[in-house]
Protein backbone atom coordinates (compact mmCIF):
# COMPACT_ATOMS: atom_id res chain seq x y z
CA UNK A 1 0.00 0.00 0.00
CA UNK A 2 1.31 3.41 -0.93
CA UNK A 3 -0.01 6.46 0.86
CA UNK A 4 0.72 10.07 0.06
CA UNK A 5 -0.79 13.05 1.78
CA UNK A 6 -1.30 16.74 1.15
CA UNK A 7 1.59 18.74 2.58
CA UNK A 8 1.01 22.49 2.72
CA UNK A 9 -0.26 23.69 -0.63
CA UNK A 10 1.55 21.00 -2.57
CA UNK A 11 -0.78 18.22 -3.69
CA UNK A 12 0.44 14.68 -3.30
CA UNK A 13 -1.60 11.80 -4.75
CA UNK A 14 -3.25 9.27 -2.46
CA UNK A 15 -3.29 5.68 -3.60
CA UNK A 16 -4.64 2.70 -1.70
CA UNK A 17 -5.63 -0.89 -2.22
CA UNK A 18 -8.07 -2.63 0.11
CA UNK A 19 -9.63 -6.07 0.13
CA UNK A 20 -12.97 -6.51 1.88
CA UNK A 21 -15.43 -9.35 2.38
CA UNK A 22 -18.70 -9.62 0.47
CA UNK A 23 -20.87 -8.08 3.15
CA UNK A 24 -22.93 -5.04 2.13
CA UNK A 25 -21.68 -2.94 5.05
CA UNK A 26 -17.99 -3.42 4.14
CA UNK A 27 -18.12 -0.57 1.64
CA UNK A 28 -19.04 1.87 4.41
CA UNK A 29 -15.53 1.54 5.82
CA UNK A 30 -13.99 1.94 2.38
CA UNK A 31 -15.84 5.22 1.86
CA UNK A 32 -14.79 6.36 5.33
CA UNK A 33 -11.18 5.89 4.21
CA UNK A 34 -11.75 7.60 0.88
CA UNK A 35 -13.80 10.60 2.01
CA UNK A 36 -11.12 12.44 4.07
CA UNK A 37 -8.72 12.21 1.15
CA UNK A 38 -11.31 13.74 -1.19
CA UNK A 39 -12.05 16.53 1.28
CA UNK A 40 -8.37 17.20 1.93
CA UNK A 41 -7.84 17.39 -1.81
CA UNK A 42 -10.65 19.96 -2.11
CA UNK A 43 -13.00 17.89 -4.22
CA UNK A 44 -16.45 19.49 -4.20
CA UNK A 45 -19.43 18.07 -2.31
CA UNK A 46 -20.94 17.22 -5.69
CA UNK A 47 -17.82 15.23 -6.62
CA UNK A 48 -17.87 13.44 -3.28
CA UNK A 49 -21.58 12.59 -3.64
CA UNK A 50 -20.93 11.18 -7.12
CA UNK A 51 -17.97 9.07 -6.04
CA UNK A 52 -19.88 7.80 -3.00
CA UNK A 53 -22.86 6.77 -5.13
CA UNK A 54 -20.72 5.05 -7.77
CA UNK A 55 -18.73 3.23 -5.08
CA UNK A 56 -21.93 1.98 -3.42
CA UNK A 57 -23.52 0.86 -6.68
CA UNK A 58 -20.38 -0.88 -7.94
CA UNK A 59 -19.94 -2.63 -4.62
CA UNK A 60 -23.57 -3.79 -4.55
CA UNK A 61 -23.12 -5.25 -8.03
CA UNK A 62 -19.83 -6.92 -7.04
CA UNK A 63 -21.30 -8.51 -3.92
CA UNK A 64 -24.75 -9.40 -5.22
CA UNK A 65 -24.15 -10.35 -8.84
CA UNK A 66 -20.41 -11.08 -8.81
CA UNK A 67 -19.74 -12.87 -5.54
CA UNK A 68 -23.36 -14.04 -5.13
CA UNK A 69 -23.45 -12.78 -1.53
CA UNK A 70 -20.84 -15.30 -0.39
CA UNK A 71 -19.01 -13.60 2.50
CA UNK A 72 -15.94 -15.79 1.97
CA UNK A 73 -15.40 -14.18 -1.44
CA UNK A 74 -13.50 -10.92 -1.50
CA UNK A 75 -13.85 -7.62 -3.32
CA UNK A 76 -10.63 -5.77 -4.12
CA UNK A 77 -10.86 -2.00 -4.31
CA UNK A 78 -7.99 0.15 -5.56
CA UNK A 79 -8.38 3.89 -5.49
CA UNK A 80 -6.24 6.86 -6.32
CA UNK A 81 -6.88 10.53 -5.63
CA UNK A 82 -4.96 12.81 -7.94
CA UNK A 83 -5.08 16.58 -8.45
CA UNK A 84 -7.54 16.40 -11.32
CA UNK A 85 -9.39 13.14 -10.73
CA UNK A 86 -10.33 10.26 -8.48
CA UNK A 87 -10.06 6.75 -9.88
CA UNK A 88 -11.55 3.57 -8.42
CA UNK A 89 -11.02 0.02 -9.63
CA UNK A 90 -13.20 -2.71 -8.14
CA UNK A 91 -12.74 -6.42 -8.77
CA UNK A 92 -14.87 -9.32 -7.53
CA UNK A 93 -14.33 -13.08 -7.62
CA UNK A 94 -17.32 -13.79 -9.82
CA UNK A 95 -17.48 -15.13 -13.36
CA UNK A 96 -18.08 -11.67 -14.74
CA UNK A 97 -20.81 -10.36 -17.03
CA UNK A 98 -21.32 -8.53 -20.30
CA UNK A 99 -22.41 -4.97 -19.47
CA UNK A 100 -23.83 -4.60 -22.97
CA UNK A 101 -26.65 -7.06 -22.25
CA UNK A 102 -27.98 -5.16 -19.25
CA UNK A 103 -31.29 -3.57 -20.31
CA UNK A 104 -31.65 0.20 -20.24
CA UNK A 105 -33.84 0.80 -17.18
CA UNK A 106 -35.19 4.09 -18.49
CA UNK A 107 -37.50 2.72 -21.16
CA UNK A 108 -40.81 0.85 -21.35
CA UNK A 109 -41.48 -1.86 -18.82
CA UNK A 110 -37.83 -1.72 -17.69
CA UNK A 111 -38.79 1.40 -15.71
CA UNK A 112 -40.58 -0.90 -13.27
CA UNK A 113 -37.85 -3.57 -13.11
CA UNK A 114 -34.91 -3.55 -10.70
CA UNK A 115 -32.09 -4.29 -13.19
CA UNK A 116 -29.61 -1.80 -14.57
CA UNK A 117 -30.31 1.29 -12.48
CA UNK A 118 -27.08 1.01 -10.47
CA UNK A 119 -24.98 0.79 -13.61
CA UNK A 120 -26.87 3.71 -15.17
CA UNK A 121 -26.09 5.84 -12.11
CA UNK A 122 -22.42 4.82 -12.20
CA UNK A 123 -22.23 5.87 -15.85
CA UNK A 124 -24.07 9.13 -15.15
CA UNK A 125 -22.11 10.24 -12.11
CA UNK A 126 -18.63 9.15 -13.23
CA UNK A 127 -16.79 10.35 -16.32
CA UNK A 128 -15.23 7.01 -17.26
CA UNK A 129 -16.63 3.52 -16.70
CA UNK A 130 -14.71 0.59 -18.17
CA UNK A 131 -15.06 -3.14 -17.57
CA UNK A 132 -12.38 -5.73 -18.14
CA UNK A 133 -12.92 -8.45 -20.73
CA UNK A 134 -14.16 -10.96 -18.16
CA UNK A 135 -16.58 -8.41 -16.71
CA UNK A 136 -15.61 -8.89 -13.07
CA UNK A 137 -13.63 -5.67 -12.72
CA UNK A 138 -14.78 -2.09 -13.25
CA UNK A 139 -12.63 1.03 -13.49
CA UNK A 140 -14.30 4.36 -12.77
CA UNK A 141 -12.94 7.90 -13.00
CA UNK A 142 -14.47 11.19 -11.90
CA UNK A 143 -12.67 14.34 -13.04
CA UNK A 144 -12.69 17.37 -10.79
CA UNK A 145 -14.65 20.49 -11.69
CA UNK A 146 -15.94 19.18 -14.97
CA UNK A 147 -18.87 21.29 -16.14
CA UNK A 148 -22.09 19.31 -15.78
CA UNK A 149 -24.94 21.18 -17.47
CA UNK A 150 -27.51 18.54 -16.49
CA UNK A 151 -26.70 18.92 -12.78
CA UNK A 152 -27.03 22.68 -12.94
CA UNK A 153 -30.34 22.56 -14.74
CA UNK A 154 -31.65 20.01 -12.25
CA UNK A 155 -31.15 22.35 -9.33
CA UNK A 156 -33.29 24.88 -11.13
CA UNK A 157 -35.95 22.37 -12.06
CA UNK A 158 -36.18 20.71 -8.70
CA UNK A 159 -39.82 20.82 -7.66
Amino acid at each position, binding site marked *: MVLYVCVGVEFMPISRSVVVSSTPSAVVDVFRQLQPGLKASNFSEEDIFAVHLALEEAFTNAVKHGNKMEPSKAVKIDYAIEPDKVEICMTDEGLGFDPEVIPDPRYGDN*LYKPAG*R*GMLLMRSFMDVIEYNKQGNSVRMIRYREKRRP*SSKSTAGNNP
Partner: protein
Amino acid sequence: MASLKPKVSVEYGEKATIVTFTDEKILEERDIVELQGSLMGIIEQTEKINLILDFSTVKFLSSAVLGLLIRVSKKVYEQNGQLRLCNINPRIYEIFKITRLTKIFDISPDRASAAASLAGQQ
Protein backbone atom coordinates in the same frame (compact mmCIF):
# COMPACT_ATOMS: atom_id res chain seq x y z
CA MET B 1 -46.97 11.16 15.85
CA ALA B 2 -46.37 7.43 15.91
CA SER B 3 -42.80 6.23 15.52
CA LEU B 4 -41.68 3.07 13.79
CA LYS B 5 -38.13 2.63 14.98
CA PRO B 6 -35.74 3.38 13.57
CA LYS B 7 -36.43 4.11 9.91
CA VAL B 8 -39.59 6.22 9.58
CA SER B 9 -41.92 8.46 11.53
CA VAL B 10 -45.62 8.51 10.66
CA GLU B 11 -48.22 11.24 10.94
CA TYR B 12 -51.85 10.42 10.32
CA GLY B 13 -53.46 13.57 8.94
CA GLU B 14 -57.01 14.19 7.76
CA LYS B 15 -56.05 14.28 4.13
CA ALA B 16 -53.02 12.02 4.05
CA THR B 17 -50.70 9.75 5.93
CA ILE B 18 -47.25 11.35 5.97
CA VAL B 19 -44.23 9.11 6.35
CA THR B 20 -40.88 10.80 6.97
CA PHE B 21 -37.67 8.86 6.53
CA THR B 22 -35.54 9.35 9.63
CA ASP B 23 -32.15 8.23 8.30
CA GLU B 24 -29.84 10.54 6.37
CA LYS B 25 -28.48 7.64 4.37
CA ILE B 26 -30.54 4.73 3.08
CA LEU B 27 -28.18 2.18 1.67
CA GLU B 28 -28.00 -1.23 3.21
CA GLU B 29 -30.16 -4.14 2.15
CA ARG B 30 -31.13 -4.67 5.78
CA ASP B 31 -32.39 -1.09 6.08
CA ILE B 32 -34.34 -1.39 2.86
CA VAL B 33 -36.00 -4.63 3.99
CA GLU B 34 -36.97 -2.93 7.28
CA LEU B 35 -38.31 0.08 5.42
CA GLN B 36 -40.34 -2.09 3.10
CA GLY B 37 -41.89 -3.89 6.07
CA SER B 38 -42.80 -0.58 7.71
CA LEU B 39 -44.21 1.02 4.57
CA MET B 40 -46.21 -2.00 3.41
CA GLY B 41 -47.70 -2.28 6.90
CA ILE B 42 -48.80 1.35 6.82
CA ILE B 43 -50.33 0.98 3.35
CA GLU B 44 -52.28 -2.13 4.35
CA GLN B 45 -53.72 -0.37 7.41
CA THR B 46 -55.61 2.21 5.37
CA GLU B 47 -57.98 1.57 2.52
CA LYS B 48 -57.33 3.89 -0.45
CA ILE B 49 -54.43 5.48 1.36
CA ASN B 50 -53.22 8.95 0.44
CA LEU B 51 -49.54 8.51 1.21
CA ILE B 52 -46.94 11.27 1.26
CA LEU B 53 -43.30 10.22 1.58
CA ASP B 54 -41.20 13.04 3.02
CA PHE B 55 -37.49 12.90 2.10
CA SER B 56 -36.43 16.04 4.00
CA THR B 57 -33.93 14.12 6.14
CA VAL B 58 -32.50 11.99 3.34
CA LYS B 59 -29.17 13.11 1.94
CA PHE B 60 -28.05 9.92 0.25
CA LEU B 61 -29.72 6.85 -1.19
CA SER B 62 -28.82 4.04 -3.57
CA SER B 63 -30.63 2.51 -6.52
CA ALA B 64 -31.93 -0.26 -4.24
CA VAL B 65 -34.17 2.35 -2.59
CA LEU B 66 -35.64 3.22 -5.98
CA GLY B 67 -36.69 -0.41 -6.35
CA LEU B 68 -38.36 -0.23 -2.96
CA LEU B 69 -40.24 2.94 -3.95
CA ILE B 70 -41.53 1.26 -7.11
CA ARG B 71 -42.84 -1.64 -5.03
CA VAL B 72 -44.47 0.81 -2.63
CA SER B 73 -46.03 2.69 -5.55
CA LYS B 74 -47.47 -0.53 -7.01
CA LYS B 75 -48.96 -1.46 -3.65
CA VAL B 76 -50.55 1.97 -3.16
CA TYR B 77 -52.12 2.02 -6.62
CA GLU B 78 -53.29 -1.60 -6.34
CA GLN B 79 -55.31 -0.41 -3.37
CA ASN B 80 -56.64 2.58 -5.30
CA GLY B 81 -54.60 4.96 -3.20
CA GLN B 82 -52.42 7.92 -4.13
CA LEU B 83 -48.71 8.47 -3.58
CA ARG B 84 -46.71 11.67 -3.45
CA LEU B 85 -43.00 12.22 -2.79
CA CYS B 86 -41.79 15.52 -1.38
CA ASN B 87 -38.86 17.48 0.06
CA ILE B 88 -36.32 15.73 -2.15
CA ASN B 89 -32.97 17.51 -2.20
CA PRO B 90 -31.45 18.44 -5.59
CA ARG B 91 -28.80 15.69 -5.59
CA ILE B 92 -31.35 12.99 -4.82
CA TYR B 93 -33.71 14.50 -7.37
CA GLU B 94 -30.94 14.12 -9.93
CA ILE B 95 -31.03 10.36 -9.28
CA PHE B 96 -34.78 10.28 -9.96
CA LYS B 97 -34.27 12.34 -13.09
CA ILE B 98 -31.42 10.25 -14.51
CA THR B 99 -33.35 7.02 -13.98
CA ARG B 100 -36.49 8.70 -15.40
CA LEU B 101 -38.46 7.74 -12.34
CA THR B 102 -39.79 11.29 -12.43
CA LYS B 103 -42.19 9.77 -14.99
CA ILE B 104 -43.54 7.30 -12.45
CA PHE B 105 -43.60 9.33 -9.26
CA ASP B 106 -45.50 12.51 -8.47
CA ILE B 107 -42.85 14.67 -6.81
CA SER B 108 -43.84 17.84 -4.97
CA PRO B 109 -41.57 20.51 -3.49
CA ASP B 110 -43.03 20.24 0.01
CA ARG B 111 -45.74 18.64 2.14
CA ALA B 112 -48.28 21.37 1.56
CA SER B 113 -48.13 21.12 -2.22
CA ALA B 114 -48.07 17.32 -2.03
CA ALA B 115 -51.24 17.36 0.07
CA ALA B 116 -52.86 19.94 -2.20
CA SER B 117 -52.21 17.74 -5.24
CA LEU B 118 -54.09 14.81 -3.77
CA ALA B 119 -57.52 14.26 -5.24
CA GLY B 120 -60.35 13.98 -2.70
CA GLN B 121 -60.07 13.14 0.96
CA GLN B 122 -58.70 10.08 2.66
